[in-house]
């Protein structure tokens, strides 16, 4: 293939791949990736991934097998992204008022690695179509279809999809803090108990089925609920005030889960909305109903 013939597939793949990465790079309330430097790092990785995906097929078509092999080796470097993200998040975890937990961190790290591969896929499809058909618009269409398929996969389930939520008052039985009769923690200081009674809010998270019940049993999933709710609604906690850490505990009789939190913003409806949008973590998801014993034993 001549130089000019290589330009269209490589440019098409590169541009579409970079656009796909930008569309997948959203800085939301979780502030991850951090803006602007974290965003720039991931955008740069995305452009490199798009370049790799767009060059492989034209290189093979031009019988440049060494270049193609080299590009495959480069693609293997993207597995380091997961390790890099995990290390970065672990470093700041001890300084978080409400930590994310290892499941959430692993989920974020895995997602960023996967997105690089998805960008390679979009670029690969675009440049392949343009290389073999010569149709630039066809290549763009193929890249866009791949991207939208990927985009649909991106959004996983949320807590609101698997559970019913209710906001309730917290109560004390002696020094035991309870939400819907489930013991959450023991609060020794009188002033702290008064603060809880004045400003604390309980959330009952009732699983819709046995799969949801098994997923919500995960400590990592519950820690993610506490972290995300605190990130959105704020929490009246600081160093030296461990008794105001939002905790999520399980009712061992029914499998439902309750959270006790002292939010900065006491709006109950928005607290429920915040809990609803917490993502179901891949590492925490369980599906006993997909097994025969689980299905037969189901209520």
């Amino acid at each position, binding site marked *: 293939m001549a130089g000019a013939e290589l330009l269209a597939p490589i440019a098409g793949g590169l541009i579409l791949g970079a656009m796909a990465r930008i569309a997948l790079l959203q800085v939301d309330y979780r502030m991850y990736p951090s803006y602007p430097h974290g965003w720039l790092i991931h955008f740069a990785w995305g452009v490199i991934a798009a370049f790799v995906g767009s060059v492989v097929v034209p290189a093979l078509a031009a019988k440049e097998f060494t270049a193609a092999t080299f590009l495959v080796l480069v693609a293997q470097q993207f597995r380091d992204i997961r390790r890099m993200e995990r290390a970065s998040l672990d470093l700041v975890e001890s300084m978080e008022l409400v930590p994310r937990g290892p499941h959430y961190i692993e989920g974020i790290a895995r997602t960023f690695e996967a997105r690089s591969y998805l960008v390679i896929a979009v670029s690969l499809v675009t440049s392949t179509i343009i290389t073999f058909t010569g149709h630039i618009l066809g290549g763009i269409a193929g890249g866009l279809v791949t991207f939208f398929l990927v985009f649909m996969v991106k959004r996983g389930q949320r807590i609101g999809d698997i559970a019913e939520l209710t906001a309730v008052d917290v109560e004390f039985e002696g*020094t035991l803090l309870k939400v819907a009769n489930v013991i959450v923690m023991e*609060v*020794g*200081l009188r*002033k702290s108990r008064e603060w809880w009674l004045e400003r604390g809010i309980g959330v009952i998270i009732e699983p819709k089925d046995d799969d949801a019940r098994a997923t919500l049993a995960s400590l990592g999933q519950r820690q993610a609920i506490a972290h995300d709710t605190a990130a959105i609604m704020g929490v009246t906690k600081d160093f030296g005030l*461990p*008794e105001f850490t939002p905790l999520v505990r399980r009712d061992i009789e029914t499998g439902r889960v309750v959270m006790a939190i002292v939010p900065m913003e006491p709006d109950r409806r928005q607290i429920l909305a915040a809990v609803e949008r917490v993502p179901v973590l891949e590492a925490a998801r369980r599906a006993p109903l997909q097994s025969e014993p689980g299905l037969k034993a189901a209520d």
Partner: protein
Amino acid sequence: MEIRIVETIVCVITLDRDAVGGGGAPIVYAKNEEERERMAEVLSRTMDAMVHDLGNGVYVLIKH
């Protein structure tokens, strides 16, 4: 009474000297409930430890 270490007990505050045995954590003796409450608050804030009431006049501060 024996105090068992669950996570890390960093301090014990008690109204009753006989209610607490050894164990390694510093033991602080309070004269009354108000003093116990004040000392527990100060120690919990400075050590980022949680105050738990054992219900027999003893507060333990635990680092979770």
